[in-house]
Each structure stands twice: as structure tokens, then as C-alpha cells.
């Protein structure tokens, strides 16, 4: 009977198309919105991804990575003295205005790293060498920032176009020249400013007037000491706050600064509510469209189901037929919706905006929800068919 149930479903192409549209649309909405949500949320802890270190140390009042509360320079020595620390390097992060050659100002994320060890340096340089940061007034700019901070020129077609910054170009931060010696590839951040790397000491100069410039300390544990264990030792020994740097969302530990950053944005901004509403909307729209379409599919076939009942099919058989139909439609609808979400995601990633992270868990959750919609639709149909009197087939 299941084969016939499927043939009944596929036999009505128009109804099937509408049913699949409803399911695919909800799957698309749920998967796409969730992926954009997790993409945006992953941007919140971007510094943890771009500035690599096993342990981060901060002021005890720090709640998330974008909220640096400056430390005293002497704290660095205290951390270095903790048993289990292989090395500790200073890190400066701040948002400052950069003045471009054409007079425009751009907000940048200034990152000052230790000039001796280059701890926290970008992993990928597409142009230049990290060692060149030791030259006077030098910075390394990220690729996206280079494009964003580029100057406007007139192209050969006479139309204005933006020329990305390149090695050798200059700009100013607090009236101090910054000469580009490298272009790096890093992940973009929620706060929006391009990443501009320089040395820690030069960063102090760029932030004139700041009494304290040590935002975080990057620490490497000695061999045999786990990051979590070292965090405990640092906190006990210095009273500062120490964090691990796990950024894998499904895997991060209790001490992860990325995790804290994620939940800080979760609880202190309207982002989860906004995206959660869209996901819920997808669910409700899915239930409404699919439920309604499947219900009308059942209604149109009601007299045939009544005939099948009269011929001796029990409700168990009919219920299974309806489940087979609903779940088959659900599977196809999920495939279409998830495929479209992937396609949109790829296009987004290519354009770089907005962020898009489709975890396997998002696909699984969407799959379960779409099948849930199918289940509800099937139940509605089963209730309707169960109420049909088999004797109604004799009433014309």
C-alpha cells in the first residue's frame, strides 16, 4: 500500500508542488536564518580566531573579548612568574580612527602584538613579511580592510572606483604615520573595523593619552600543562581572569572566552530574538502552508480513503499511508530548502556579507523540524480520515 500511497502523492503534481514549496520555504527560512545567526555570532569572537594563543589573561571584570579593560604593564611580569607559563606576551586591542590620504576617516581595530615573539600575529599574509613590522611606523592591514580603506579614483571608463590599499601606502592614526608593509587574511569582526596589526609599543604611540594600553596577555602553557589547568594557576596566583581560546562552538569549555563572548551577545543584544523570530516564523509558515496543503490533499482524497476503509483497510494502514506521504514530502522539501540555503550561503560567502555558518547541527535541527511539520500535517489528515464514516461511500 505504501507504493500506492506514494503514487497517490506524486500523481497530483500541482498539489505536490505546493506542498513541497511550503516545506522547502520553511526549511530554507530555518536553515538560512540559523546559519546567518550563527555566522553573525561567530563574528562576535573574531579576535579569538585572528589572534591565536592558547590562554588569554584579562582584567577580572572583562566579560567578553571586545570589552577590554586595560591592565597594568606590571601584570605581565606577575603572569610570567606563574608556574606552568612557557611565555606571556602583551596584546593591545582598541578601536581608533584612521585618517586616510584622501581625508576620510575609518574606524579600525588596532592590534598591538609583541615585537619580539610576534605572538598573536595573523596566520596568513598575502603580501609582505611579519618581520617588517619591526621597521618604523609600519602596520599590516587585512585584505577586506585594504579594500574598505582604499581611495576613490576614476577608472578608464570614466566611472569612480575604489582602489584597495597596497604595500607602501600610508595613512595616519592620531597624526602618526602608518605605512603598510603587509596584507593579511583574517576573519571579519562583528564590530566592523578592519584589523590593523602593529607592534605593542607602536600601538601605545597610536593611542596617545591612554594611561594603560595592555588589553590582554597571550600566554602559552609549558609542555604537559593544559590551558584550563594553567588558567586555574594564573587566577589563583594573580587574581586576574584567565581564559582558554576554544572557538569551536559545539566543543568549547567552561573557561572559553569565545563562549563567554557568544553568550554575552546572546543575553545583551536583540540578535537571538530577531533571528529566533525568523526561525519560528519559518516553522509556523511551514506548519501553516504544509498543514493546510496536506489537509486539502487529504480532503480531496477523503472519499477515496473512505472507499479504501469500506473495502477493509484499517485505520492503521491508512495512517501509515498518510505518514509515508507526509514524510516523503517532508524529505524532499527539506532537501530542496536545505539545498537552496546552501546555495544562498555560498553566494553570501563569496560576497563576504553577511556571515554564514551552516553547522551540521543546523541541518539536523532543520531536518527534525521539517519532519515535525510533516508529522503534524499527517496527524491532521489522520484525524480527518478517522472521522470519515465508511458508509459515506454509499451516499454518492
Amino acid at each position: 500500500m505504501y507504493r500506492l500511497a506514494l503514487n497517490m502523492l506524486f500523481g497530483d503534481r500541482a498539489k505536490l508542488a505546493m506542498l513541497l514549496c511550503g516545506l522547502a520555504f520553511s526549511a530554507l527560512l530555518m536553515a538560512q536564518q540559523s546559519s546567518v545567526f550563527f555566522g553573525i555570532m561567530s563574528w562576535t569572537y573574531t579576535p579569538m580566531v585572528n589572534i591565536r594563543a592558547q590562554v588569554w589573561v584579562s582584567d577580572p571584570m572583562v566579560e567578553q573579548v571586545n570589552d577590554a579593560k586595560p591592565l597594568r604593564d606590571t601584570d605581565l611580569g606577575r603572569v610570567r612568574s606563574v608556574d606552568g607559563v612557557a611565555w606571556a606576551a602583551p596584546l593591545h586591542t582598541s578601536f581608533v580612527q584612521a585618517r586616510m590620504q584622501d581625508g576620510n576617516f575609518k574606524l579600525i581595530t588596532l592590534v598591538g602584538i609583541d615585537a619580539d615573539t610576534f605572538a598573536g600575529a595573523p596566520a596568513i599574509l598575502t603580501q609582505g613579511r611579519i618581520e617588517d613590522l619591526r621597521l618604523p611606523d609600519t602596520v599590516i592591514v587585512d585584505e577586506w580592510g585594504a579594500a574598505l580603506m582604499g581611495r576613490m579614483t576614476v577608472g578608464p571608463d570614466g566611472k569612480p572606483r575604489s582602489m584597495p590599499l597596497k604595500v607602501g601606502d600610508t595613512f595616519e592614526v592620531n597624526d602618526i604615520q602608518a605605512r603598510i608593509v603587509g596584507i593579511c587574511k583574517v576573519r571579519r569582526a562583528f564590530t566592523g573595523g578592519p584589523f590593523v596589526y602593529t607592534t605593542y609599543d607602536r600601538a601605545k604611540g597610536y593611542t596617545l593619552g591612554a594611561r594603560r594600553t595592555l588589553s590582554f596577555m597571550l600566554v602559552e602553557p609549558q609542555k604537559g600543562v593544559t590551558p584550563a589547568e594553567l588558567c586555574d594557576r594564573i587566577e589563583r596566583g594573580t587574581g586576574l581572569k584567565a581564559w582558554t581560546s576554544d572557538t569551536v562552538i559545539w566543543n568549547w569549555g567552561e573557561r572559553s572566552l569565545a563562549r563567554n563572548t557568544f553568550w554575552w551577545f546572546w543575553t545583551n543584544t536583540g540578535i537571538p530574538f530577531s533571528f529566533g523570530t525568523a526561525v519560528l516564523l519559518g516553522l509556523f509558515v511551514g506548519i501553516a502552508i504544509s498543514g493546510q496543503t496536506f489537509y486539502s490533499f487529504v480532503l480531496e482524497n477523503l472519499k477515496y480513503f473512505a472507499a479504501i476503509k469500506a473495502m477493509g483497510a484499517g485505520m492503521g494502514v491508512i495512517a501509515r499511508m498518510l505518514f509515508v506521504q507526509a514524510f516523503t514530502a517532508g524529505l524532499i522539501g527539506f532537501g530542496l530548502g536545505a539545498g537552496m540555503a546552501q546555495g544562498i550561503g555560498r553566494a553570501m560567502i563569496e560576497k563576504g556579507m553577511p556571515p554564514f555558518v551552516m553547522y551540521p547541527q543546523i541541518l539536523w535541527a532543520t531536518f527534525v523540524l521539517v519532519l515535525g511539520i510533516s508529522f503534524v500535517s499527517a496527524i491532521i489528515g489522520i484525524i480527518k480520515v478517522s472521522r470519515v464514516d465508511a458508509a459515506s461511500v454509499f451516499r454518492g
Partner: protein
Amino acid sequence: MSPLAHTIAVRASGVDIFFGTLENQVVALQQADFEARRGELIMLVGPSGCGKTTLLSVIAGTLTPQAGTVEVFGQRLDGLGQEELTAFRRKHLGFVFQSFNLIPTLSVIENVMVPLLIQGRPYDEAHARSLAIIDKVGLKGREDGRPNALSGGQQQRVAIARALVHEPPLLICDEPTSALDKDTGGHIMELVRDLSRSPERCVVVVSHDHRIFRFADRIAEMEDGRISRVVDDPKLLDATHL
């Protein structure tokens, strides 16, 4: 037990069916008695609203009477639960409906296969048996088409094939010719008579189409919810009274 007892296929005694509430009660059957024998084609005739279809529903086990007993091939139906009635219909009954009730999204052969698949027969066996009976009803070559592509008479042939494919001992036909013209109706009744005729099978046909009365072995006339008379020779029935 009388010598005739084993020849009785259907026996309904003192059957009452009421619809509606006490204030607006409609009496559909009142103390209705009916008998059909094995090997015969019996017609239930009468004016609209006399209770023909209701009695048919009672015999088919799709409607439970408020009073009286119903026995089909020695099995009392009035004491059976819904699941038992469903199983009984699956095994013993074949149906031909007034409006065919062929599933439009299935092919002809898939429609015919339904009773066998409901019985749990393997798909290949159901397919082979359905093909054979489609051949018998004269629709060979049309088995893969959709019912909507067939004429009314051809659709009713498919319905007859579906009703007989699992070889039920009781065939129930509800106004099988009402949607057909005279000639087609005649052909359909010939087909019903020829294909269903068997010493063990009973065919009950509800109709008010006097043009097909000649196909009946006996005719039971209904009036006001009960059988008013049974005519052994259909030619004796004056159609003008119906």
C-alpha cells in the same frame, strides 16, 4: 436448521436504523427483514429515501443497526467490533459504487490492486491477478492509463474488476448504472452477471433503474424502511410502481 439454511448468504432480521436526535428523528429502516441466497443476483429496489442504501450499508457492515440482527455467510455482524468488521469486509466483500470511487492519481491497474494490497498480498501477485481481471473486463491495454482518461462505462468496468479481483463471496453494487446511459448500463450489468455468477457468490444490487431489473434472479422491493415484497420473476414487477 432448515434445509435452506446453508444456501442463505445474507440474512437481516428486524433491523432498525434511526438517524438524528429524538426531536428530529428520521427512521431509515424499521423492522426490516431481508434474505439473499448464495449463487443469486438480487436487486433491492424502491423509490428514493426508502432505505435501500441504508440496508446495503448494514449488510456491508459499514453501519451498525440499533436493533435487529445481520448475518452474512453465517457470521453475525451486529456483535462485531470495528476492527472485526473491517477484517470481515476485507475478506468477504467486494464493492461497486455509484460514482466509481476510482482514485484518479493511480493507474487503472493500481486501482484494481487495492483490495489485494489491503489483504497484504505481495505487490507482484496483486499485479498479476489484477492484470488478468482487467483482461476479463475488456480493458486490456488500458491498465497503465489513468481512470479519468476512460469513459464512464470503462471506469465502471475498472470498478467491477476491483470489486472482484480478490474473489469475495459477497458483491455489493450501489446504483452501478445510474451514472451510465442505457446501453452502457446494460453492458455493465451483463458483465456483473457473467463475471460474478458463481454457486457460492451472492450479488446484491441496489438500483432504481428499471432497465436493469431483467438481470436479477429476484427483486426485493422496499418501501418506508422495510421490504414490502420480494418478486421471484423480475418480469412480474411493474416498473411504473417504482
